[in-house]
């Protein structure tokens, strides 16, 4: 399709997944790879990148103006969608998935493909463990909560002692950057940083590799086009885990 203006989709239904996360089922299916994202246009408000949680859904946590506007939408209302964009997770080999909070959204379709042998699923509390019930039926799920209300008490990285990380071909990770950086550090210590695949979150304006607002230091990779998933060896000695940039391009500490 040479025309890349947003396609209109109807919100078919809204699922309250956790107290802070909702899934919006869309009236259209998109051909995609797990880890790819779409640019979601909330008319009159803004456009934001969102991972696809299935071929016809996005799963969203309310964090800013645009997601708040999305949360005010009802079934039957229209959104604009561009994409899918980006590279996505590699789906080959024996995969350990590591999710933090709403970071389970892009990993869900990877689990659905059947290649994830084990999922480490972290959240603030038991109620925030996203897709825990559904994904437990598809793979081995080890939970962790910050408040200890379910599973391991503490960050999801605390679960690494319960798995033989070296036995996995790939470790696919999505969650808060501090968590992902902790995973990268663990893999680096084991000498297997290149087996980690991390889905980065950076401020994006265009989504197609043109504007440069999501570029990361020092290599200048475009998160929207060269990523959003990068192997760990490319992220060692980068800005990852240290800083990002806001909408103006100004650096902010992670």
């Amino acid at each position, binding site marked *: 399709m040479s025309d890349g203006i947003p396609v209109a989709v109807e919100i078919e239904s809204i699922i309250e997944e956790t107290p802070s996360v909702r899934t919006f089922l869309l009236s259209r299916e998109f051909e995609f790879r797990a880890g790819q994202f779409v640019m979601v246009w909330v008319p009159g408000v803004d456009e934001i990148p969102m991972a696809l949680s299935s071929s016809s859904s996005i799963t969203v946590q309310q964090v800013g103006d645009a997601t708040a506007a999305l949360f005010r939408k009802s079934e039957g209302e*229209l959104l604009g969608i561009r994409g899918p964009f980006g590279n996505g997770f590699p789906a080959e080999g024996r995969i350990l998935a590591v999710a933090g909070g709403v970071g389970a959204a892009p990993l869900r379709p990877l689990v659905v493909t059947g290649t994830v042998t084990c999922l480490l699923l972290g959240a603030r509390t038991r109620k925030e463990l996203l897709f825990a019930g559904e994904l437990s039926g598809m793979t081995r799920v080890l939970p962790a909560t910050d408040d200890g209300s379910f599973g391991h008490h503490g960050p999801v990285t605390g679960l690494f002692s319960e798995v033989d990380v070296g036995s996995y071909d790939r470790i696919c990770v999505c969650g808060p950057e501090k968590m992902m950086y902790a995973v990268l550090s663990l893999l680096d210590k084991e000498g297997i940083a290149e087996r980690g695949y991390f889905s980065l979150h950076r401020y994006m304006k265009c989504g197609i590799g043109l504007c*440069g607002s999501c570029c990361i230091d020092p290599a*200048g990779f475009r998160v929207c086009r060269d990523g959003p998933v990068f192997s760990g060896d490319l992220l060692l000695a980068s800005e990852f885990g240290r800083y990002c*940039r806001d909408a103006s391009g*100004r650096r902010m500490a992670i």
Partner: protein
Amino acid sequence: MLERLKSGTVNVGGVDLSNHLLLAAGVLGTTGSSLRRILEQGAGGVVTKSIGPVTCYGHPGPCIAEVEGGVINAMGLPNPSRAFADELAPLSGKPVIISIFGGDPGEFREVAGWFAGMAAGFELNLSCPHATGYGAALGSDPRIIEECTRAVADLSFPTWVKLTPNVTDIAACGRAAERGGATAIVAINTVKAMRISPELKRPVLGHGYGGLSGKAIFPIAVRCVYELYEACTIPVIGCGGVSTGSDVIEMMMAGASAVEIGTAVRDNPAIFREIASRIYSPDGVEPDSIIGCAHE
């Protein structure tokens, strides 16, 4: 058979470039690392994202609409203002041109003053079509173009002036920049444009209208360069829809002393090296012999 040009460094409008191919402003120019990546990919020089007098977060999205033959954007001049100096540190000594904008001659001079000596030169954005009070809002009036140009050129650094095609007489704008002391003219910025979503019944850009770039505007850019080459004595740098070696040669024949590439970088950051390999040869003709040759 495409005529090959002799390879080597060139000086255009007071700036030394390693070849005739530059990265256009607004594309992958927010960070020092992405600019360095483009230089490593064979660009002869790079122009940064436009930097202005105050920190700006840009227009609400969507900021981009991909259309047949091009892209319409309305970014809204997002920039970190003076903090951009941090991005320039890893680019010291490289052929980097800082694009700057302001709302009046004083603001242009203020911003240029912050970065004086930190780069090879300035490109004045008097042409962004979708920022109220900036860009083309000033750059449609030859008198204001002349004043803004003079405010920066007086600092005695190479001063390029990027013009908008959204005017009746671009030659008059070029002559105004030359009177103001510009060392080169860059033409063109994007062409004012809009698309509407039939289902959502509203413009597809958050800002409403934006600027069209890409292949679709190449003929407009060639015409503007051709007119400016006849109207001005300072060098003209061609910009707008260039995506092949043949486009570069055509732009030079219209009168361009160098060429900027933007939208085509989206699909191919290595485009500079690829085009260079097609248009240069050690035994090629002198580039000066083809610049403006279409006018003879």
